[in-house]
């Protein structure tokens, strides 16, 4: 096998991300301590640059196997890769507010390496590659969650995340080993070919084992126990990254894996995923109602959102190819809208919590009078999470429910709508505190860093743009979905 330049195009974003991580580490040792904070600007600018350069490596229509079938180069993986890199850049900007996060450059390096793992998760087409990608994502994230080693909550978050993650990935791996045994190959597409059409108990068993690992990644009930604790304990920018990019990577894997490996077993996995979707939405929303800590509230809300996305994944099992394609399209579209929205929500919590020193509800009383712009951004983000027009979250939900109805899953759409109403209640409660309640110290201004300001402007504009001009984004999601059919 000879190496040619064109072979490197499909992994161009990953290569650039690694180079950026190395640049950050080199700058880390050569810069004086006081200036290391600026590595956040380097990371964010680098992420933006990588997105621009990667446009040169845009895939053609269809899906081509690369690197001996280890990865697939198609619009699906490309879209997700750009999404992850965007998320990493924004997270770097939010992290700059936290002195203890950014006094060493390793934070940014770990962030970028975990993004490399996510990029490979989105494109992996082989069991070995998939496992490696999942672990490349997870291991840096364990460290990031426990990054404040002198903080009890943060180290507890890293501890719990590692134990849950290692256990579920071992269970998933057992499923992988069975799949390899049944088919004698590790290539996802070839596994599907060598599996017989009829369902057998061992097949269902390995399907369930694999779903445990994916369920952990997307924090679907009943594999969600880690999420609230980890989000509450870990540094807030990391929690934002975990709840968006890491979750989207889990869904990218779930969609590709189910469609490639188990296309004949839709009768088996569609009901399983449908029940997971209902449980995830309902439990996430109901428990969120009882929360007093805003990070835990967002954790349960992000569990609920995983449930909404699962609706799209279930719709993709429909025998009607149009409905199935709409299912994948709406899944991708929702993940884009959700990533932008939830990053904004966590960014606001990070910026405010840093100043107020608390993530309790009571700290948010009268925030609008201390910082009207931050409150405005919060309103946009929370209304989008609640699924109100004209924001991105609304359009995303419309498409998800449309996909469910097209796939003849009207009951699932109804459950989704009912859950959105529950969700609306707790999002509006927070906004009530922010806008209507008197603040204990109304005159004290809230200075917002330049990095936070930039990130929040980008995200807020993004939420509105995705919600108002949704045509091109939907077209992008449809192109991505068409690539894997």
């Amino acid at each position, binding site marked *: 096998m000879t190496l040619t330049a064109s072979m490197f195009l499909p992994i161009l974003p990953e290569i650039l991300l690694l180079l950026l991580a190395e640049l950050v580490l080199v700058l880390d040792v050569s810069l004086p301590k006081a200036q290391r904070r600026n590595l956040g600007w380097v990371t964010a600018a680098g992420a933006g640059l990588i997105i621009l350069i990667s446009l040169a490596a845009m895939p053609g229509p269809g899906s081509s196997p690369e690197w001996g079938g280890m990865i697939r180069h198609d619009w699906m993986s490309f879209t997700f890769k750009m999404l992850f890199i965007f998320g990493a850049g924004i997270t770097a900007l939010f992290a700059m507010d936290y002195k203890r996060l950014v006094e060493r450059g390793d934070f940014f390096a770990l962030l970028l390496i975990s993004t490399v793992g996510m990029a490979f998760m989105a494109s992996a087409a082989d069991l070995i590659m998939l496992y490696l990608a999942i*672990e490349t994502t997870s291991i840096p994230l364990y460290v990031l969650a426990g990054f404040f*080693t002198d903080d009890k909550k943060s180290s507890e978050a890293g501890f719990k995340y*590692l134990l849950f993650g*290692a256990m579920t990935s071992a269970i998933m*791996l057992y499923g992988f080993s069975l799949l390899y045994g049944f088919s004698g190959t590790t290539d996802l597409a070839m596994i599907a070919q060598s599996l017989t059409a009829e369902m057998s108990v061992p097949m269902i068993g390995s399907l369930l084992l694999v779903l445990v690992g994916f369920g952990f990644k997307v924090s679907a009930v009943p594999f969600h126990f880690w999420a609230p*604790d980890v989000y509450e304990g870990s540094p807030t920018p990391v929690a934002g990254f975990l709840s968006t990019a890491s979750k989207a990577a889990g869904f990218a894997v779930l969609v590709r894996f189910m469609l490639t490996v188990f296309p004949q077993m839709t009768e088996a996995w569609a009901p399983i995923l449908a029940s997971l979707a209902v449980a995830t939405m309902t439990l996430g929303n109901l428990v969120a109602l009882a929360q007093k800590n805003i990070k835990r509230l967002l954790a349960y809300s992000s569990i609920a959102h995983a449930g909404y996305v699962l609706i799209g994944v279930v719709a993709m099992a429909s025998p009607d190819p149009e409905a199935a394609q709409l299912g994948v399209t709406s899944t991708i579209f929702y993940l884009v809208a959700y990533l932008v929205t939830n990053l904004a929500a966590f960014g606001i919590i990070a910026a405010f919590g840093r100043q107020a020193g608390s993530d309790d509800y009571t700290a948010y009383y009268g925030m609008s009078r201390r910082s009207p712009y931050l409150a405005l951004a919060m309103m946009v983000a929370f209304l989008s999470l609640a699924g109100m027009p004209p924001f991105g979250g609304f359009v995303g939900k419309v498409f998800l429910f449309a996909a469910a109805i097209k796939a003849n899953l009207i009951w699932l759409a109804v459950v989704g709508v009912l859950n959105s109403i529950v969700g609306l209640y707790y999002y509006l409660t927070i906004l009530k505190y922010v806008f209507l309640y008197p603040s204990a110290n109304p005159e004290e201004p809230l200075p917002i860093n330049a990095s936070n300001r930039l990130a929040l402007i980008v995200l807020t504009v993004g939420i509105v743009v995705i919600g108002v001009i949704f045509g091109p984004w939907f077209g992008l999601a449809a192109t991505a979905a068409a690539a894997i059919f």
Partner: protein
Amino acid sequence: MIPLSWYLIFAAALFSIGLFGVLARKNAIVILMGIELMLNAVNVNLVAFWRYRAPEMIAGQAFAIMVFAVAAAEVAVGLALFISIYRRRNTVAADEIDLMKW
């Protein structure tokens, strides 16, 4: 030659013992050992399947090597996190590390 099923039964037993250890034990180090047992069961599976099902393709062996390389990295990070927890609280018992719940 020993039939394939023996290996699979052995691996399934090993996996179950590991999973039981993870779910039932309190000490984080022992939980990590349970996870190692589960990963070893995976490796037994992979190597046995490789030998009996597809010996001409090296994929199974390569997979097994990847698994224990990654497992070593995971344990390294895990032990580092445990040390940072132990320094703060003088314990690594999973049920005592419960600042956050519900």
